[in-house]
């Protein structure tokens, strides 16, 4: 026969285990603040996979911190390290309104210099119609007062020209594209690069671009005008997050 009335003194310490507590029986009135304050403090920003308890419409769930952290600014997505020669570097599966691609010590196999070009696309194709990619930039030689301006309208965008096979790479910088995966807007961008021309000199290059396409892009590729290979460097992809 089970007992229905047990004096407090009749229960010894730690005698009640989980099997004797009814489901859903532990409510707020039974919880002491020390259930939280009695634990060790995590004295740093939680990892993305650290978990928080949340009531989802009345159902308790665990929530990864990654879903609620505020991270305005550039958020790293992916990296391609040129560990062996390739003709093309592509990022696919991108779902971001604003992206940045960072180029780090990129070099090619071209002994006389070639151009690095860019195209955007979606799952159907990379866009390559005439005059789709419009850009202009200002260049300045790092080791002299020389400089100038250039414009281009083409089937792809020339990111930088006369990149050669100098050991250690010949290009660093970034390309930003705004409205990338947004089908309701055209795509605008800007870039800032520093590079060594195979035909002599070091240059800084800053410019803007407009891509005459209003579809939601999900991929971007980089290739060389002469069909040659990238031989070194890294391409890093970031998403610009508002929050």
């Amino acid at each position, binding site marked *: 026969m089970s007992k229905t009335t047990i004096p407090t003194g009749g229960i010894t310490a730690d005698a009640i285990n989980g099997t004797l507590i009814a489901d859903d029986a532990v409510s707020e009135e039974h919880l002491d603040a020390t259930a939280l304050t009695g634990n060790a403090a995590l004295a740093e920003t939680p990892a993305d996979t650290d978990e928080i308890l949340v009531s989802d419409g009345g159902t308790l769930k665990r929530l990864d911190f990654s879903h609620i952290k505020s991270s305005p600014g550039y958020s790293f997505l992916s990296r391609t390290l040129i560990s062996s020669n390739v003709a093309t570097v*592509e990022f696919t599966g991108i779902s971001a309104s604003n992206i940045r691609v960072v180029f780090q010590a990129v070099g090619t196999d071209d002994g006389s210099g070639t151009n690095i070009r860019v195209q955007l696309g979606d799952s159907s194709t990379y866009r390559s119609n005439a005059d789709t990619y419009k850009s202009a930039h200002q260049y300045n030689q790092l080791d002299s007062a020389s400089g100038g301006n250039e414009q281009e309208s083409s089937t792809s965008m020339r990111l930088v020209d006369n990149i050669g096979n100098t050991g250690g790479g010949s290009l660093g910088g970034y390309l930003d594209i705004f409205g990338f995966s947004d089908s309701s807007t055209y795509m605008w961008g800007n870039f800032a690069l520093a590079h060594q021309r195979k035909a002599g000199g070091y240059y800084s290059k800053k410019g803007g671009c407009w891509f005459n396409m209003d579809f939601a892009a999900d991929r971007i590729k980089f290739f060389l005008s*002469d069909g040659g290979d990238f031989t070194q460097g890294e*391409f890093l992809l970031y998403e610009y997050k508002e929050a």
Partner: protein
Amino acid sequence: MAKYKFLNNAKTGVVERVEITGDELKELEARETAWDSKANKLKEIKFNRLLKLQATDWYSNSDVTMPSYIKTWRQTLRDITKNFTTESQYDELLVVDTDKTSKTFGQLTHSIWTQPTS
């Protein structure tokens, strides 16, 4: 020779080295064929020449007298396309200093590019 690409799926973070085939390979080979190495070198020579000429344009100001050695040098630069016509001659003009310890590392070494001082 087989050509490859790095395919980076930004969603999964998986990076694959994939052989380029089909239409994509044809397009790449067409680019290779269309690339005119000699024309590109000439373009670079003209680019460098333009910068050198621009750097001495100020000598043309009305309140400055352009020294004869600058006049001669500028004419020599303008005559580059007349006096250098083969791809190997282009290569000579485009040789750069490859000594990383040198102050002129990465700069053109052919004497034609050096602005005279007298």
